[in-house]
Every structure is written in structure tokens, then in C-alpha cells.
């Protein structure tokens, strides 16, 4: 058919973006976070990330071979999934964690439904939820200390700690051995406050001191740069914002979801974030948006094309939903961090949101 002209349906010109370009650009945008992770925790974080990414690719290739469909691992989506999954893992986790997570994410989260574009929920988040449900203790303990700081990101930890060790060993363990969100969650727990000291007033007072300390400017700086304990890819808000800026510039992600997500968290934590005895503080919402996986979730996971709503209004509803759930889980839930579960939950709701936010055709009255 060499001598024949090509005939196809209009349009005959095409934008240059394609799937693999999108995926690899997201991978590129995620690398600054990895660089920070390597700086804080050493080469181990790189190894875990690569283990996750490579096993995701291998799993996808194997399943596609088995299903006798074209192997499409070049498009980068499996690599991205594996990478995002590893980003959600504690850098001190055993080496098989990212592998198990990636295999589950790709096999159950994606290939069961026929591969790219068909998955009902974000596979990386599903992988993380799977790991958390399967090995809860391994996933939530054994955090690595950043090279230049401490786990909770408290600015003057030494000053507070020396005081605490004698006062309440439980509180001491907390500020030296937990991630910032865990600290805040524990401080919100009245039973913990009561246990600090028989004298409840003193407990509240102490809790308040730690609370204000962890949400003050100097500690926030640690959070912003990532100088705290946490999962591989989520700690450095700065690095993630850098990548997000690139994606926004490249028009790969849209501003609605991150803005409304982070905005909702900001407003709600300002209103409901303070603990008993602490007043409203402009610092507290910043603490919440820089800590945990919010930046990673809002820019890189909630914006996942496949699992977010199609319409602009739908995306706003979706993002607000994510924000509300994140705050609910952080403030009253059983987990210190709610980003991944809230996005997962809203992923499940996406088809319904799509259904009820279907756009009105231009010029159509209702």
C-alpha cells in the first residue's frame, strides 16, 4: 500500500503531547523529591524507589505478556506507579515492601481492569493501602532520622527533650520518636494528655507547649525543606512544589485540584486544628499543608487523570472532598495521616461525581 495516499478522518493535524510524554514528565517532576530523600536518608531511599518502580514495570510486562496484549511499559505509567508507591513508604522499610506494594498495585489496581486508563482508583495509593493493611507495624514505625535533623522536626528538640525526659517518658518518646503528624495526633488525644501527668492541667500545658513548638516558624522550615521523618517522597514540600510548578507550566496537571485540595485543608485546619487550650494560629494551617503527604497527594496523586473527574466543576467537588476527608482523618481519625485514604475514597466517588456534574452542552437549556 506504499503508493497509496493516507486517508483518515479529520482532524489531520495533532497536538504533540502523547501518553508517554505525559508520564515521563511526571517522573521528571518527581525527581527533586527523590534527590532530597537521598540527601536526608542516603542511598537507601533511591534503592527502595528503584525497586518499586522496576518491579512495577516487570509486573506490568509479565501480565501483558500473559494476557497476550501489546507490552506497553515504555509509556512510563507503570514506572510512575511504582515510583509513587515507593514515595509512600518509610525509608527504613524492608526491601521487599516496595516490591510487594508494586506488584499488588499493578496486578490488582490496574491490570485486573485492563491496564492504563481503566483503573478505578489510583494504583499507587491502592498499593500503599494494601501495605498498610497487611503490615501495619512495619509501615508505621522504624522511621529514619533525617541526616541533619530529628523525626518530629521540632526546632529546639534538645531543649524540650531534656526537660521532658524526667517529666514524662511517654511524651519524651513521642517528640523524639514520631513524625510531626503523629505528634500532633497524639497531642489531640485526651487520654494521652491525661497520662502525661496526674495533674491534668499540667498535661494540657505540656501538650500545648509541644504543639506550639511544632507549629512555629522554625519547625515549619524543617517541614518545608523536608528535614523531618516521613515517607521517601513526601517529606520535602519544597522539592514537590518545584516539580508541581514544572507540571503546571507544562500544562500536564490542572490547577483546580491542588488548589482546592490544599485550600480546603488550609481553611479547615485553621478552624478545627487547634487543640484544647491552644488558640487559633496562622501557623497551624501551614503546618498541616507542609506535613505528611499532602503536597505529594495534591499535586501528583489526586491529579491522576484516570481517577479524577472529567469536568472542571467535578474536579472542584472532588478536591474539596479530598480536603475535607484528609482533615477529618487527621483530626479525629485513627491514622495520623489521611491523604492517601481520602484520595482513594474520592477516587471511588469519581464516577458519581462525573455523573452529577455532567456539563450542559453549549446553548442547551435545562
Amino acid at each position, binding site marked *: 500500500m506504499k503508493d497509496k495516499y493516507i486517508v483518515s478522518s479529520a482532524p489531520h493535524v495533532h497536538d504533540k503531547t502523547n501518553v508517554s510524554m505525559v508520564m515521563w514528565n511526571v517522573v521528571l517532576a518527581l525527581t527533586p523529591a527523590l534527590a532530597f530523600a537521598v540527601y536526608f536518608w542516603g542511598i537507601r531511599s533511591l534503592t527502595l524507589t528503584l525497586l518499586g518502580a522496576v518491579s512495577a514495570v516487570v509486573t506490568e510486562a509479565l501480565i501483558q505478556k500473559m494476557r497476550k496484549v501489546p507490552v506497553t511499559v515504555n509509556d512510563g505509567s507503570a514506572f510512575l506507579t511504582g515510583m509513587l508507591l515507593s514515595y509512600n513508604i518509610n525509608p527504613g522499610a524492608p526491601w521487599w515492601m516496595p516490591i510487594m506494594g508494586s506488584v499488588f498495585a499493578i496486578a490488582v489496581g490496574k491490570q485486573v481492569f485492563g491496564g492504563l486508563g481503566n483503573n478505578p482508583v489510583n494504583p499507587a495509593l491502592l498499593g500503599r493501602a*494494601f501495605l498498610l*493493611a497487611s503490615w501495619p507495624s512495619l509501615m508505621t514505625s522504624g522511621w529514619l532520622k533525617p541526616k541533619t535533623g530529628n523525626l518530629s522536626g521540632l526546632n529546639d528538640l534538645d531543649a524540650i527533650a531534656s526537660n521532658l525526659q524526667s517529666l514524662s517518658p511517654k511524651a519524651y518518646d513521642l517528640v523524639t520518636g514520631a513524625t510531626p503528624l503523629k505528634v500532633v495526633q497524639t497531642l489531640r488525644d485526651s487520654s494521652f494528655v491525661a497520662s502525661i501527668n496526674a495533674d491534668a492541667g499540667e498535661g494540657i500545658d505540656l501538650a500545648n507547649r509541644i504543639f506550639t513548638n511544632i507549629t512555629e516558624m522554625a519547625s515549619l522550615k524543617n517541614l518545608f525543606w523536608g528535614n523531618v521523618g516521613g515517607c521517601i517522597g513526601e517529606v520535602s514540600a519544597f522539592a514537590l512544589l518545584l516539580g508541581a510548578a514544572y507540571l503546571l507550566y507544562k500544562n500536564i496537571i490542572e490547577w483546580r485540584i491542588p488548589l482546592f485540595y490544599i485550600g480546603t485543608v488550609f481553611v479547615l485546619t485553621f478552624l478545627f486544628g487547634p487543640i484544647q487550650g491552644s488558640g487559633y494560629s496562622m501557623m497551624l494551617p501551614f503546618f498541616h499543608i507542609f506535613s505528611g503527604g499532602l503536597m505529594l497527594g495534591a499535586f501528583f496523586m489526586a491529579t491522576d487523570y484516570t481517577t479524577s473527574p472529567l469536568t472542571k466543576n467535578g474536579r472542584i467537588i472532588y478536591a474539596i472532598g479530598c480536603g475535607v476527608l484528609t482533615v477529618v482523618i487527621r483530626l479525629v481519625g485513627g491514622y495520623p495521616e489521611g491523604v492517601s485514604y481520602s484520595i482513594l475514597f474520592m477516587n471511588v466517588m469519581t464516577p458519581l461525581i462525573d455523573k452529577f456534574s455532567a456539563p450542559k452542552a453549549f446553548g442547551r437549556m435545562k
Partner: protein
Amino acid sequence: MSFISELTKGIIKENPIFVIVLGMCPTLATSTSVSNALGMGMAATFVLVCSNIFISLIKNVTPDKIRIPVYVVVIAAFVSIVDMSMAAYLPALHKSLGLFIPLIVVNCIILGRAEAFANKNNVINSIADGIGMGLGFTLALTVVATIREVLGNGTWLNIKVMPSTYDPMLITLLAPGAFITLGFLMALMNMIKEKK
């Protein structure tokens, strides 16, 4: 059809869970351990056989209009018997199966067999059908439970089978694990069917 073929069809060919896809609730809820699965399977088998016998006996005297309510009452009676005797003799099992013993009443398998088989066949064949279906149910339940118990607890019928370094995958004991395990087993059945 002969007694034997009525007996065996429920085990593989018309397996109530994998092929006919009925009775999902107890399958998922009671397959956390093999012992639970066996207990549930036996209880359901008992009810199935008894109700099959009874219904095939009374099929000619039941008016068509009220046959379903009658069947439900018959089944409920047998379920109550199982419930009470289990509470008396196997209190531990009764406790862990909990709500799902009385819920055998609404297990689609039992009513379905009553309608589809016992209502149209004689007592002997109905017994065979009941035993076969019951065994098929028990078998399928045990398969699911085996996977879940081994992966989620490292044991089989409370005997340790996995090496001590094995970190049990807790999720298989939880609700999501139950759904996903059964989902994959069904997909496997589909694949085998397709190959044929």
C-alpha cells in the same frame, strides 16, 4: 439422573459458589479460618439436606401461591435447630460464626435448591442433591479459607505451615482480602472455563 451424578455435580460442575455464584455473604464472612469454613459448611449442608428432604416430601401438598413462604419457614426451622445445637455443643464456633448462622435462612443456595431441585424431584435424589451442593459449598469455602488462613496467619487449621520468618499478610484476613481472594479465584475459574 442417578444418585451418584446428583451427588457429584454440586462439587465441581455446578459448584454453588464458583459456578452458580450464590451465597457470597457467608463465603466471605466465615472463611477467615479453615475451622470456621468447615463449621459453616457443615451447618449449611445439614440445613440443605434436611430442607431438601422435607420439601420434596411436601411438594405435592403445598399450594403454588404460598410455596416460597412455606419453604422459608421450613428452612428457618432447621436453621434454628442448627443454631441452638451449635450454641449448646460448639459454643466457640457458634460465637465466631455469629450472625451468619441465622442468616443461613436467606442463603440463596438453600432456597434456590429447594425451588430448583427439591420441588421437582423425589426424596432420594433430593438428598443426593443436598449433600452434593453442601459438600461443594463446604469445599469452596475451605479453599477460600485455606488461602486466607495460610497467607494471613501462616497456619492451616491452626497448624503452623509457613516458615517463622514469614511476615503474615494481614490483609487476607480482613474484608478487602476476602473480596480480592474470592475475586481472583473466580477469575481463575473463568480462565479454566475459557480454555475448555
